[in-house]
C-alpha cells in the first residue's frame, strides 16, 4: 500500500485527485471538531484529520513521517486522549454557549483575519511554484536520508529531545502521583472510627448498592426499610459523574404485591 501511495504521489494527476478529495474532508473534519458537543466525537474527527495528514505526508515523499504519524499520533497519542476521556467521563457533553463576553466574535474575526492574511501572504510568495521534489534526497530511501541527517547534523537536538521525552515521562508520573499526606488508615482504625463516630448507623459499614431483580448494578441506590433510597450506598465518584440511576422504580410502593394478599 505504501508503494501504491508513492506511485500515486509521484504522478501529478493522481496526487491532485487525492488532495482535492482528502483536503476538503479534513477541513470539514477539523471544523466538525469545533462544532460537535461530545469530546469523543471530536477525538474521532481528530483521528480522521491525522490519518488524512499521514496520507499527505506519504504523498509528498515523506513515507517515514506518514507512518510515524499513524503509529505515534493516531495510534498512541489519540489513544491517550481517549483514555483520559474515559477517565473524566466519556458521555459528558459540552455546552457550546459562550460564557465569556465577546470572546467568540473576537476569535472568529481574528481567525478570519489570520487565515486571510496567511493565504494572501502565501499567494504572494513564489514558493512552491516549481517544487524541487524530494526524489533526489530520497534516492537512498527516505528512512536512510532522515537517519543520516538525524545522526549527523541533528544529533545534538536529537539527544536533547530524548532527554526531554524522559523528563516528560517522569514529569507526568510525578504529576499524576497522588501524594498521601497521612498514612493510610488500617482496617482496624477505620472500624474503631466507625464505632466511635456520632451515630452507630454506619457502624457495620456503608450500605451496599441496591440489588434488584430487574437491575443489579452499582449505579442504583439501595432502598432503606422505609422504602426511600439510601444515598450513602452509591460510590462518590459515580455521583460526581452524574451516573446514578433513579431507584424509585424499585421502591416498595411501586411493586405489585397483590399475590401476597391472596394468601
Amino acid at each position: 500500500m505504501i508503494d501504491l501511495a508513492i506511485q500515486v504521489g509521484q504522478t501529478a494527476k493522481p496526487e491532485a485527485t487525492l488532495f482535492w478529495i482528502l483536503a476538503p474532508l479534513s477541513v470539514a473534519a477539523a471544523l466538525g471538531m469545533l462544532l460537535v458537543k461530545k469530546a469523543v466525537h471530536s477525538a474521532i474527527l481528530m483521528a480522521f484529520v491525522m490519518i488524512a495528514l499521514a496520507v499527505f505526508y506519504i504523498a509528498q515523499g515523506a513515507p517515514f513521517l506518514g507512518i510515524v504519524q499513524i503509529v505515534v499520533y493516531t495510534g498512541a497519542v489519540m489513544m491517550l486522549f481517549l483514555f483520559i476521556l474515559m477517565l473524566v467521563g466519556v458521555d459528558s457533553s459540552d455546552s457550546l454557549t459562550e460564557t465569556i463576553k465577546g470572546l467568540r466574535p473576537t476569535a472568529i474575526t481574528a481567525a478570519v483575519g489570520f487565515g486571510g492574511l496567511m493565504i494572501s501572504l502565501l499567494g504572494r510568495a513564489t514558493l512552491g511554484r516549481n517544487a524541487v521534489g524530494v526524489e533526489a534526497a530520497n534516492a537512498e530511501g527516505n528512512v536512510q536520508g532522515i537517519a543520516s541527517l538525524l545522526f549527523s547534523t541533528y544529533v545534538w537536538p536529537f539527544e536533547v529531545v530524548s532527554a526531554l521525552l524522559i523528563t516528560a515521562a517522569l514529569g507526568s508520573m510525578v504529576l499524576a502521583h497522588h501524594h498521601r499526606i497521612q498514612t493510610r488508615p488500617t482496617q482496624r482504625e477505620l472500624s474503631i472510627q466507625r464505632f466511635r463516630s456520632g451515630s452507630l448507623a454506619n457502624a457495620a459499614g456503608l450500605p451496599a448498592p441496591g440489588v434488584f431483580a430487574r437491575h443489579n448494578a452499582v449505579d442504583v441506590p439501595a432502598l432503606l426499610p422505609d422504602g426511600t433510597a439510601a444515598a450513602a450506598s452509591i460510590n462518590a465518584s459515580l455521583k460526581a459523574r452524574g451516573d446514578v440511576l433513579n431507584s424509585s422504580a424499585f421502591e416498595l410502593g411501586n411493586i405489585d404485591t397483590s399475590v401476597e394478599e391472596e394468601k
Partner: protein
Amino acid sequence: MMTSTTLVYLIALPLAGSAILLLAGRRSDKWGHLLATGLSASSFFVGLYQLSLMLGRSNSERPITQKLFEWISVGTFKIDASLMLDQLSICFVLLITGVGTLIHIYSISYMSHDADRRRFFAFLNLFIAAMLLLVLGDSYLNLYVGWEGVGLASYLLIGFWNQKPAYATASKKAFVMNRVGDMGLSFAIMIAFATMGTVSFSGVKAAVDHTSTAALTSIGIMLLVAATGKSAQFPLQAWLGDAMAGPTPVSALIHAATMVTAGVYLITRSNFIFDAAPTAQLLVVIVGAITLMFGALIGTAKDDIKKALAASTMSQIGYMILGAGLGPVGYAFAIMHLLTHGFFKAGMFLGAGSVMHGMNDEVNMRKYGALRKFMPITFATFGLGYLAILGVPPFAGFYSKDMIIETAFNSGGAKGIILGCVTLLGAGITAFYMTRVMILTFTGKSRWDDEAHPHESPWLMWLPMAILAIGSVTSGYLLSHGDALVNWLSPLFENHAEHAELLSPLVVSGLALAMVAIGIAIAFIKYSRNEVAAVAPTDVSIFTTIARQDLLQDRFNEAVFMAPGKVLTAVLVKTDEAVIDGAVRGAGRIALGSGSALRGVQTGFVRSYAALILLGAVALVAAIWVVTQ
C-alpha cells in the same frame, strides 16, 4: 620685609585658652577665667614687646611678617597662612589685647554669678584670637578667616543667654546680616583674584597700577559692603541694637571697641584701592555720613541705656568711615578716632554694665535717676567718657573728632561743606543724646523700683573702668601730640597733596564746641528742668516714634526681605512637593494606572489569553503582510 617667629603667639595664646576651656569643660570652672585673663594679658605683653621692637627699627623696616605654612595652593591661587604686623596692625593689636584684657578682668566679677562663666571666657578668648587674626592676616583671605571668626564669636556671645528666645534671635540676626557683608568680602576677593591674580595686601597694592578703575571700583564697593556689615553701617546696621542682648562686657569689647571697627580697618587697609577708585571712596563717605546721622537720631530716642550707647557707637563709626573715605588725609584721623573711641566707649559700656549690676540688670534709663550718689566711681568714669565723646577739650574726642570734622570741611567744594555740616550737626546731636543719658541715669530724682538697691561695683569692675577713663582723658592728646599717630602711620599711605584750607582748625573747634553747647543746652532744658516719666510717654511726635523704632530699619527689612523670603520659601516648598515631586509621582501614577487598566485583560480564563495570543499573531502576520507589500 623682615620676618619674625613670634607673631603667631599673639594669636596662639588666646586660641589655646579658648580650646583648653572648651575641651576641659566643667573641670576648668574654677580656674578657667584666670587662665583666659592671663593669656589675654600675655598676648598684650607680646604686643607691647613687638611695639618696642618696632620702635627700634627705621620706618621702612617696621612691617614684619611670619609665614606659618602654605594654606591653599591650587594653580595660581596660592594663599599662605602668614601674618603681617605693621604700624596699622600694631595699633589694633594693642587696642584689642589691651581693652580685651581689661574687659576680661571686669568680667571676672561681672559674670561671677553666672554658672557658665568659663564658657564666656572661652568665647572671649576665641574672639581675641579671631580679631587678632583679622588684623594680622597678610591677605584678604586670611583677613576673611578672622572676619568670619569674630562673627562667630560675636554670635556666640550675643547669644550667650540664648535660653531667652529674643536673645537667640538677636544673635542669629547679627550672624546673618554679617554674612551679607561677608558676601561682599567674598566678591571683593574673587574680583581681585580674577583681575590681579593675587589677594595678598602687598600683591594687590602692587597690582593697582595695572588694573582698570572699573575693577578697582567694584572691589572697593564690595569691600564697603563688607565694612557695612561688620561695622553696622547703613544699610546693614540693624543688627547692632539687638546685639546688646549679649552680656555688657561683650557689648563693650566687641560691639563698641573692636569688632565693629573692623570695617574701618578694612577700608584703611585697602587705602590703595580706594585711592584709585574715587567713586567707591565717595560711596564710603556717603555711607559714613548717613550712618552717623542715622545712629545719632536713633540715640536721641532710646530709653535702654545699652541701646542708646549702641546707637552712639553706630554714629561714631560713621565718623570713622567718613574719615576713612576722605582719602589719605583721613585715614590716620579715622584710626585715631577709632582708638580714642575704643577707650571712651568701652569705658562707658562698662559703666553701663556697672549701673546694671547695681540695678538688678535694669536697662531702662527712665527707671534710673540720681545714681550719682550711690555709684560715685561709675559716675566719674562714665562722666569722663561722656566728656571725651562730646569732644570737650582736652579730652580724647576733642582731638580725634575735630580732626575728622576739619578734614571733612577741607575735602573741597560742595562735598566738603555738606560733609562738614553733617559732621557738625552729628556732634550737636551726640551732645544732646549723651547728655540725656547722663541726666537720666545719674542726676535728678530716683525713679527706680523698690527692690533695687544701687551700690558701687567691686574693685575688679571699677579698676578697668578707671583705666579706660584715664585713656579717654589722655589718649587724644598723646596720639595727636606732634602728629604722633599721623607720622607713625604715614609710611602706609600715599603721600597726599594738601587741600586749600576752607576753615582753620580753630574755627572748626569753635563751631564744634558751639554745636555741643547747643546740644547740651537742649538736653538740659528738656530733661533736667522737667520731671522725667518713669514710663516712656506715648503721646510723642511721629519723629520720636520712628526714632524709637530705629528709624523703621527692622520694619523695612521685614517688609522687603523677610516677608517675601518667607513667602518664597513656602511657595517653593509647596512647589517642590506638588510640581517637581508631583511630576515624578505622576509618572509613577501613570504607570500604576495603565497597569491596573491593563489588568482587566487578565481575566484568569486561559481562553481569553489564547484569544490575545491569536490577536497578537494576527498583528504579527499583518505586519509581515504590510512589510512585504
